[in-house]
């Protein structure tokens, strides 16, 4: 095995400032550089660890909210269905307002007429408040053009018909 220490650098490089001259062996590694690098690495590691733990806590809270939303949908409709779709973006990514859609009768996901509920507010007894909603025909995505029979204040202006 060979390394850079075996090479002789051309004399032209000797005119370079000392910090720019080619080095030849790891043994000559400046301790100060290594110390600065290690310090920066530790700081970056702390930031990443903090961000990760914060994100796990944040996601756990989101999950708790979604559990309450799913439970609310099941209680409101009286259907114990598990294939429900959750839209967290429709009413704003950070709004904590969710739209939960599911079938109104048994069948594969989106294969029947669907009911969508707009849910937000604090969790009370494992549920959140329903503030409105709409219906969708079978086999369609939740787009304004397909919505009908809007109900409740949160659905104002969200139905095309």
């Amino acid at each position, binding site marked *: *095995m*060979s*390394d*850079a*220490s075996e*090479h002789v*650098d051309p004399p032209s490089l000797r005119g370079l400032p000392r*910090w*720019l*001259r*080619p*080095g*030849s*062996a*790891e043994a*000559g*590694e400046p301790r100060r*550089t290594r110390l600065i*690098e*290690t310090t920066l*690495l530790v700081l970056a*590691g702390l*930031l*990443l*660890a*903090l*961000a*990760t*733990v*914060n*994100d*796990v806590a*944040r*996601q*756990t*809270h989101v*999950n*708790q909210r*979604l*559990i309450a939303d*799913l439970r609310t949908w099941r209680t409101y409709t009286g259907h114990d269905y*598990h294939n429900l779709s959750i839209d967290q973006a429709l009413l704003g*990514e*950070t709004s904590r307002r969710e739209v939960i859609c599911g079938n109104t009768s048994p069948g594969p996901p989106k294969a029947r007429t669907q009911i969508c509920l707009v849910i937000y507010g604090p969790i009370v007894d494992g549920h959140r408040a329903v503030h409105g909603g709409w219906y969708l025909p079978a086999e369609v995505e939740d787009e304004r053009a397909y919505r009908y029979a809007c109900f409740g204040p949160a659905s104002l202006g969200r139905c095309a018909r």
Partner: protein
Amino acid sequence: MPPARRRGLATVLALLLIAATAEIVLDGAVGHSALIPKSPDIAGWLAGIGERLGYRVFLIAILVFTAAYAGLILLCGRTSPDGISKRWAIVLVGVLQAMVFAGPILLSTDVFSYIAYARMGVEHGINPYLHGPVAIANDPVYRYVGHDWRHVPTAYGPLYTLLSYPLAPLGLKGALWGMKLEALLASVATLALTWRCACARGLDAVRALIVVGANPLYLIYGLGGAHNDLIMLALMMAAVGFTFADRDAAAGAAVVAGTLVKATVAVLLPFMILSRRRLATIAGAVGAIALAALIGYAAFGIHGIDLVAALNRDAAFVSTDSFATEIAHLFGKPGVFPVDHDLLKVALVLIVLHLLWRTWRGYDWVAASGWTLLAVSVTSTWLLAWYTLWPLPLAVVTRDRRLLAATLFIQALFIIHQTSPLFAPVQ
């Protein structure tokens, strides 16, 4: 601790690794799980033993695996050569790899994209560098391709695309097994080359084998998903091995070959050139680029050799697991904004410039390459589990222990980030 007791502890940890892998593979074989992509039935013969793989069981298995892996690495550092023998380590890693190979595709639909691109070229005469899999919507593989990738042309290099072409006529199941076999062979090659490089540098090869071969992300995510990153890693370690054997032209050519599988590995080349300071490295790389450009252009046209466009496109994606997204959330932002992409690119450029200067001044080029690959994955807004594998084989063949510590730390954070369903399972 006496050697016999150390060996006993190592055996217990190895059994935990095997048990956790068996749990994931056997439960995964049942299918009908959000963790197992919809797939042709290739592991049905295992399906009668386990139960449907849920998040809770998967996460507990991964955490047990990770804890046992960490214990084994600590034991390796202290006991080798009298504690963990060469044969013991090879058998353990071999058993783990064989178990994952025999099971279903885990955690990712990427392998179906690979097959779709191959079938586009071979069965349908469509250039996969111009069209996404949607162009073959009537092909049996199409329904298995991930929704996000159906309109996306291939981002992989022409060498990988050509390697995948012979598998296209084998049918869906045949191609799937072909992809799994390719991934297994690439994994074995990576481990063998890592072993050889560790020996060449006078480092503990047994420890190197266990750190890479029994790594939870390498095994469950990388090999389990039959990702082509393993082929890239094999070529990367071949390049490192060639430089250790003073075969600089071959080393330069191997880096280029790896780049033609997945462009990320190109970052090795400037460090290799700066450190080795030999014309042969450049000559080897230029020769390989010329040959590859010729073949790539003949097979796929100009788009087949335009790797920069593919990289730019992928750099714009954002995943929830990326550290950029996590930091955005930490500062109260909903996600990553365009300006954040620019800031991350500036940070990456500064890191690379510093590492180039350090390499010029005599720092180990292998470690510098590993740091760069780690920086690429950490600053990427599109982070997937197998991206954190890139620096791992380099980290075990360098004397700078900080690189291995940092790589394993990043991997640990990635695993921790997956655990929120344990605290609040949504059903």
